[in-house]
């Protein structure tokens, strides 16, 4: 177990170093000159050179990279070209909103995915099964921004049950979380169905039925306990999906998270902010994957033996 832990930890650290290298190279090769953007159109050549020197953009590439790593180690993601504040401050002030949205989305995703998946698996081959699986495909194929805008139009404008975007109360959370949850729920219901179908064919389920355990209990206690395992790992692996989705959903609903921060940064080509968000998102993904790997042996003792 310890060897496994150390191996996964090493791989994670390797990936994190790779991430810093790629974000660094990307920010270096962006042709839109950040110095010009900062200095403005009318700045003299001297001012431009001064700012370039001030930002350290005139040094060789590898020196810039190591300086960059050194700053990262101190939690410094650079200054936003546009907002003139620390990128790390911008990100950390907005991270809680994104994490809240993610928690809401995961809840919806699990509710939709587990319900539809169990329903389809227990009624395999019947109309309910077909309907659930077709709907899951519709959910997966729906563009998140369209879904979000239509939910806003229907449930916030035509029937004003929820606020028209914004942040603050639980009511604000429902629609954006639901938007992300419907897309993800589509995938989860398909996975839950096939996992449940596999489990329900196992011998121990037959034994449970033969003992006279009620069908509800067989499915919800004996079956679910094993069928849900792949789903748990999936949540850890899905952080990337949420981070991408957050950019779209937060900009549709005006949700003040890091997705919206990235979206605002795109508009003004604020490179340190874009790269900062990308890096923090990538870090979240690596941590999510790592946790998924670590949680699996705890919930499923069979894995420990392998």
């Amino acid at each position, binding site marked *: 177990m310890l060897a496994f832990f150390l191996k996964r930890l090493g791989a994670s650290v390797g990936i994190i170093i790779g991430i810093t290298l790629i974000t660094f190279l990307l920010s270096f090769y962006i042709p839109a000159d950040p110095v010009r953007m900062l200095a403005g159109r009318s700045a003299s050549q001297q001012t431009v050179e001064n700012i370039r020197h001030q930002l350290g953009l005139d040094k060789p590439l590898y020196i810039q990279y190591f300086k960059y790593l050194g700053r990262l180690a101190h939690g410094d993601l650079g200054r936003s070209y546009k907002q003139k504040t620390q990128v790390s401050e911008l990100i950390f002030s907005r991270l809680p909103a994104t994490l809240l949205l993610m928690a809401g989305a995961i809840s919806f995703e699990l509710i939709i995915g587990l319900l539809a998946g169990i329903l389809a698996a227990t009624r395999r081959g019947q109309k309910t099964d077909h309907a659930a699986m077709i709907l899951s495909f519709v959910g997966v194929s729906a563009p998140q921004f369209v879904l979000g*805008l239509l939910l806003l139009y229907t449930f916030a404008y035509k029937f004003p049950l929820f606020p028209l975007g914004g942040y603050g109360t639980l009511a604000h959370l429902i629609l954006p979380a639901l938007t992300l949850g419907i897309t993800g729920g589509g995938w989860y219901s398909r996975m839950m169905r096939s996992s449940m179908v596999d489990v329900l064919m196992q011998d121990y389920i037959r034994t449970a039925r033969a003992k006279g355990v009620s069908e509800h209990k067989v499915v919800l206690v004996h079956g679910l306990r094993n069928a849900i395992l792949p789903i748990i790992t999936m949540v850890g692996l899905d952080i990337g999906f949420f981070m991408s989705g957050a950019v779209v959903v937060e900009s549709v609903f005006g949700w003040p998270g890091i997705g919206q921060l990235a979206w605002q940064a795109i508009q003004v080509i604020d490179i340190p902010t874009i790269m900062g968000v990308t890096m923090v998102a990538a870090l979240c993904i690596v941590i999510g994957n790592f946790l998924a790997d670590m949680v699996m042996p705890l919930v499923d003792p069979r894995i420990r033996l392998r």
Partner: protein
Amino acid sequence: MLYLWKKFRKNKVALFGVTVALLIIFTAVCAPLLSPYDPYEQFFEGLTLEGSPLPPSAKFWLGTDLLGRDLFSRLLYGARTSLIIGVVANGVAVGIGTIFGVIAGYMGGFLGWSIMRFTDLMMAFPALLLAIALAAIFSPSLWIVALVIALVNWVWVARVIYAQTSSLATSEFIEAIRSLGASSPRILFRHILPHLVPTILVWSTLGISTTVLLEATLSFLGIGVRPPTPSWGGIIFESQSYFLDAPWLVFFPGVAILLLALSFNLVGDALRDILDPTQRGRG
């Protein structure tokens, strides 16, 4: 082929997917013949006196957009943008993914290890944010957007192809062929590649739907295909601030994106069921 079609015919859902996909391809190819107006023409009578877009009517079937252009014509031409990017970007992604997957799986060793660690690294980036960063670097045109999407998506193909190739490369029948003195290129092209065709075929269809969604999302964020080229995501981006008054400007392009993504998803899924022997008989 005949076997495929026979299986396909029995699957009503897949048949629906094929029909919708073919219909969209048809409208994209025949857009100039089918569209009632020029998609770029701004009609004076296409706006109300206050300058608002018109709802669907007998003259403008799906209404007009903020500049008084015919939405139906723009949707038809937008199908071209989506399909070109869908097919090209996904084709490139499947191509790159297959090449790297086969190299990593067949050669193994340090080269294979490096390629696979690189895919690990790429997968640690959220796809959309990586695409945004890339799109910010290269100012986007139709082909750049396609390339950006391909650069983000190829890793998924590479991983699947890698897993299959490496298990094939160590299988007994390849061992037997090698001991008969077959050269590496011969083994690769005559004996390994044919086994990968089903996977490549499935990814070529399923991937189109992911690609189309990503293109629409990039255009919606304002970093996809540049206006005035009609793109479904772009139409929604342009009219986003207006959508409470003119919901048709979001609804119709949205349904178009959904139908295109859905159709290729359904076809791809049916193909996988038919072509993947391990899934057979599970239904």
